[in-house]
């Protein structure tokens, strides 16, 4: 029996971390702009998984076949669907409460989350039970040296997450929208005075965050081929903790936090099977006690 700290476990952790990272980004972006913890965010992830599931079924019925192009189209559809639901959620639930006390939006977010979960459970073509996610791409293990393998699925998970995160960085740093987003996150009122359409920027932020969660949903469906309406709760919660760990509101922080979470969870589980589930929450407590603004968080500490 080798040590638990080995290459294979790092690979496992990075794969898990990639999925957390995509979810955590949405949490942190929305928080950065409107100071709202959007607890329905985990459900956008679930919607992404179901959209991909539906897309594969349509493809199979119409085109017959599988493979990389189909996965790519499903990825785009999953991102679109989750993005649109996020957009709609913002417009219908959060925007009317924008200038009301923060607690109202927070409670609304929990309500929206439950609404989506139970609505999906009630829909006859979705239902509350597990569904088998179809295997579009076979997962083949590739040898990584003596004692470790990386599966093609792990490569896809890590690769898609990396590409999307690079895209986001470019968007935030080098586009007008990105500039507007940064401005709104710094000072909403000043941004408004400068002629920025704040609501439009917020809408875009929700949409991008939702789309990222949708992508994570597709990846999770492929990696863990069992989906159900409540699948977003736990990953959502862990991604939220990852965002807090990295410094909520800070985009590189969310990614860093997510990878730390993924690897920590894997190591903790390897050390003791039952410790893994709890490690996320232990990390949350330690971060809140020792460094409430997170690893890369800015100085001003807002209450969550």
């Amino acid at each position, binding site marked *: *029996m080798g040590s638990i700290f080995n290459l*294979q476990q790092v690979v496992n952790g990075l794969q898990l971390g990639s999925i957390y990272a995509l979810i955590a980004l949405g949490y942190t972006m929305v928080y950065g702009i409107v100071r709202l913890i959007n607890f329905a965010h985990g459900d956008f992830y679930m919607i992404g998984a179901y959209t991909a599931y539906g897309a594969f079924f349509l493809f199979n019925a119409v085109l017959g076949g599988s493979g990389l192009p189909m996965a790519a189209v499903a990825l785009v559809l999953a991102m679109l669907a989750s993005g649109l639901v996020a957009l709609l959620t913002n417009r219908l639930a959060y925007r009317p409460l924008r200038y009301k006390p923060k607690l109202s939006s927070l409670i609304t977010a929990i309500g929206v989350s439950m609404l989506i979960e139970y609505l999906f459970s009630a829909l006859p073509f979705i239902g509350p039970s*597990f569904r088998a996610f179809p295997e579009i791409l076979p997962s083949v*293990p590739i040898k990584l040296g003596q004692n470790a393998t990386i*599966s093609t699925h792990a490569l896809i998970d890590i690769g898609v997450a990396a590409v999307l995160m690079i895209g986001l960085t470019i968007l935030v740093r080098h586009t007008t929208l990105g500039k507007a987003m940064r401005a709104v996150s710094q000072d909403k009122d000043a941004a408004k005075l400068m002629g920025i359409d704040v609501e439009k920027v917020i809408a875009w932020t929700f949409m991008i965050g939702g789309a990222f969660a949708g992508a994570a949903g597709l990846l999770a469906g492929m990696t863990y081929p069992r989906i159900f309406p409540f699948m977003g709760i736990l990953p959502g919660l862990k991604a939220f903790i990852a965002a807090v760990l990295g410094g909520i509101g800070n985009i590189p922080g969310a990614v860093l936090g997510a990878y730390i979470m993924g690897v920590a969870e894997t190591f903790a589980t*390897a050390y003791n*099977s039952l410790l*893994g589930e709890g490690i996320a929450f232990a990390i949350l407590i330690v971060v809140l006690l020792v460094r409430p603004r997170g690893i890369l968080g800015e100085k001003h500490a807002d209450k969550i």
Partner: protein
Amino acid sequence: MKRTLSIVALALLVALALVSCAPKGPAEIVIGGVGPVSGEAATFGKSTQEGCELAVEEWNAKGGLLGQKIKLVYEDDKGDAAEGAAVWTKLIQQDKVVAIVGTVMSKVSLAGAPISEQYGVPMISPTSTNPSVTFSDGKLRDFVFRACFIDPFQGTVGAKFAYDDLGARKAAAIFDVGNDYTKGLSEFFRDTFVSLGGEVVAFEAHPTGATDFKAQLTKIVQAGPDVVYISDYYNDVALIAKQLRELGFTGPLVGGDGWDSPDLVKLGGEAVENGFFTNHYSKDDTRPEVQDFVRKYTAKYGAAPDALATLAYDAMNIMLDAIGRAGSTEGVKIRDALKATDFAAVSGRTTFDAQHNPVKAAAIIEIKGGQQVYRTTVAP
């Protein structure tokens, strides 16, 4: 006047008919049957009833039992413990049954068992797996037997199969720590595998509801087992198998009857190939008892028998066989005959151990080309 006369005449006729009917007719042996024919487990109850009826029909066709016809009184317990207790009392006190075959759910059998004990009317439950049905608080229920093997037994058989048939010498196991069924199976697998001379190189738990098992599975794969025992239900089995294959494990997987679902292959695909699980019986078993039963059942009911119908059929046959050997319908004599059972049942040649659990072989089913294929039968 005319009307009164005719009424009196009619009354007389009816009375006559009743008198002539009641004490006469051929003597019968009345057997009680109990199952959840309605309620949440209705298909279980229906299968069980069909299995019992088929067995009784066959015995009667062969001339009955102890020179008498057998009559089956089948009652619905609705899958409810209180209903079960009422039905048990009714069968014993009103229908004067000499023995009871029932029921499906453990919680209902647990309500019936003390009543059988109290009146000394022997019972066999076809499918209740809870150990305390026959053996409760360190005390044997003397009149209560079961026809299905209890959960830990599957772990024992799985280990024997892995060691003898698959030739594995190093095994690993993973199980759901929040579920007594999977935990029990894995523990018995480990103990048996070690006692056979094998080595258990990894024994890993996972929390209920987990989707990522890679951390545990990495430990398992790196420990270099020949076989991995997965005692979970099909849902988790599929995810675990997939992740095991992703980590490069190509060896055989073994599990219990929790695998028995068409969804296993849907979820697991290629990953569950080279997988084997223990089950009560396989309809593809070539033994004549099995093929004979499957043919007769299918002819009568238009569908292949499931495990419940099979176990009910076996339970009824074991009971009738015992009454035949006892040569009497007296409860105590039937009980003693039951204890001495050695019967070639469909689900395997059956004897009873000291706790009234059957000692019999289990079928090993292989997942091959996305299908469940009968592989072999393993005796404990």
